[in-house]
């Protein structure tokens, strides 16, 4: 068990180092930072002085170590375009994105799992068919198209929900929350639905497929033969055994919620990190791009790690399996 956790941990570390290396190359060699930071009228001496001050004359490994050190302290330099420290910009935007992602994740799980269970248990009811055909739309429509259609329906035609921004926010220390005000709650509805629809569909489909598979196994028949009530068979026996693939898919999908929040935030002009990132890509603002990538990679790695560890909690077979093979290796 300890061996397995350590191995996973080092793999995650390797991913982070890899991402850091790409970011470092991006930071130092794509476009000359001195060119971008010094003005038009700067002399050769001033540029050399700046180069020396930024440490760009040091050997690459020294610079790389310094880059990692700075990144660990959350220091990513100053945005080329906005002329403010990147970590401050990110910290301002982080709550908006995380709130959106969390609400979407809750929606995706809260609707996806019950709907998947229902369609798995009642294969032929008309409601299942309806849910499945709606879910087909969820898979094949691109995120931004869903956003536009929702805006057209609820903001333009019906005029009941706001189509941009976060509404009123209340700051709690360094965190700013829109969930505590009425306008903020109203503003998050459309973006959250847009963001969660695809993930919800995937979760629904995997839960349904797994349920169908498990319900065919012998131990379910045996449980039925023992005269257990349906409730116990479905939720105590069947659901438990579908959890491993469901957790895998859910975990990975949470990661892509963060990536797709870039799209949703642009459609709804949500003042989050994704919006910041896309502007950075548009205007070649490398410090922001680098900071966002490092942060996003960190989220993915943490999510993957948590998913791997959750297997232990959920599936005793894995616990026993690794402790046996782990000793041999």
């Amino acid at each position, binding site marked *: 068990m300890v061996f397995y956790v350590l191995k996973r941990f080092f793999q995650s570390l390797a991913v982070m180092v*890899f991402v850091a290396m790409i970011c470092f190359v991006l930071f130092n060699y794509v476009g000359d930072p001195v060119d971008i930071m010094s003005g038009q009228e700067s002399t050769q001496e001033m540029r050399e002085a700046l180069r020396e001050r930024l440490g760009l004359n040091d050997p690459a490994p020294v610079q790389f170590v310094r880059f990692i050190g700075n990144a660990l302290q959350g220091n990513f330099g100053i945005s080329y375009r906005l002329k403010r420290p990147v970590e401050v910009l990110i910290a301002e935007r982080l709550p908006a994105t995380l709130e959106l992602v969390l609400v979407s994740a809750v929606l995706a799980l809260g609707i996806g799992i019950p709907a998947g269970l229902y369609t798995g248990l009642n294969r032929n009811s008309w409601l299942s068919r309806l849910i499945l055909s709606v879910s087909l739309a969820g898979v094949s429509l691109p995120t931004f198209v869903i956003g536009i259609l929702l805006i057209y329906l609820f903001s333009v035609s019906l005029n009941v929900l706001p189509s941009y921004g976060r509404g009123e926010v209340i700051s709690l220390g360094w965190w700013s929350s829109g969930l505590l005000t009425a306008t903020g709650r109203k503003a998050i509805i459309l973006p959250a639905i847009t963001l969660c629809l695809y993930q919800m569909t995937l979760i629904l489909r995997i839960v349904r497929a797994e349920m169908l598979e498990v319900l065919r196994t012998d131990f379910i028949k045996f449980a039925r033969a023992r005269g257990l009530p349906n409730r116990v068979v479905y939720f105590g026996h069947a659901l438990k055994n579908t959890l491993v693939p469901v957790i895998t898919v859910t975990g990975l999908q949470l990661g892509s919620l963060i990536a797709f929040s*870039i799209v949703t935030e642009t459609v709804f002009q949500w003042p989050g990190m994704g919006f910041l990132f896309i502007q950075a890509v548009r205007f070649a603002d490398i410090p922001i791009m680098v900071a966002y990538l490092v942060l996003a990679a960190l989220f993915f790695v943490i999510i993957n790690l948590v998913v791997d560890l959750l297997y232990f909690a959920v599936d005793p077979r894995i616990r026993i399996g690794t402790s046996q093979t782990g000793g041999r290796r």
Partner: protein
Amino acid sequence: MNTYPNLIKKGRHGVLKRILDHDIFYSFTRSPVVVIAALITFLFFFTAAAAPWLTPHDPFNPATLDLMNAFKPPVWVKGGEWRFPLGTDNQGRDILATILFGCRISLVVGFLSVILAMGIGVTLGTFSGYVGGWMEALIMRAADIQLTIPAILIALTVDGIARTALPREMLDHAAIYVLVVSIGIAHWPQYARVTRSGTLVEKNKEYISAARIIRVPPVLIVVRHILPNVMGPTLVIATIGIALAIIIEATLSFLGVGVPPTTPSLGTLIRIGNDFLFSGEWWITLFPVAALVLLVLAVNLVGDWLRDTFNPKLR
């Protein structure tokens, strides 16, 4: 059951006969949804290829545009004209014409990026599968790492790097190639994984040993003997890959980091039209949206069907 005697009686041994008798064609004709999807896909290919001859308008030549024609609604709405069946946008461009030309760019980017992803993935996959050792470990670890990060983020990053590295004036002309490269790089791991596992199976078979014994050079073994045997599944993922690539292209263009508005793809058209959604000119954005959805849905359905038919495990 009695197709065989029939074959002899009629004496039709042509390619067409073989296709028509094949069980894949049979399963094709048995699923009306797939037939319709294939027809729609074909229609999109055809109209995109023949766009300049299908419409009297040239939406990308500013000289032919007249601002007097701007914001015309579709024909069936009051104020619409038959000259512009689906209405016009803010610059007086015919929406139908821009959609036809936009599909062209979307399809070109979709195809080229899938070809690129396949090229990188298949090369690295067969190579690492055949050679093995630390090279294989390195390539496959890289693929694993990349698969933990969503493709759209990879594409955005590569796109961002290219936009930073290229000079401004080159960017507009190179935009399509930048997109192809970013989407291609974002999708190679799937192809690498599939071809690698195929190669691992094939390379221990007798015909490969025989080729080795008569000293066929390793490169030729991979290209001539292994590659044809591992390409089947790859082509199937490629079909679904085209739909994915079209979606990512549209998304990037919608986000304003794809093809420029001077030569718009479907995504760019949707982005332009999105600004007018609130002022009531819904047709500028909703028609390109409909075209995109229809295209992606059709390609996806064909791809799903191919996957189900060619994968005996699922049959």
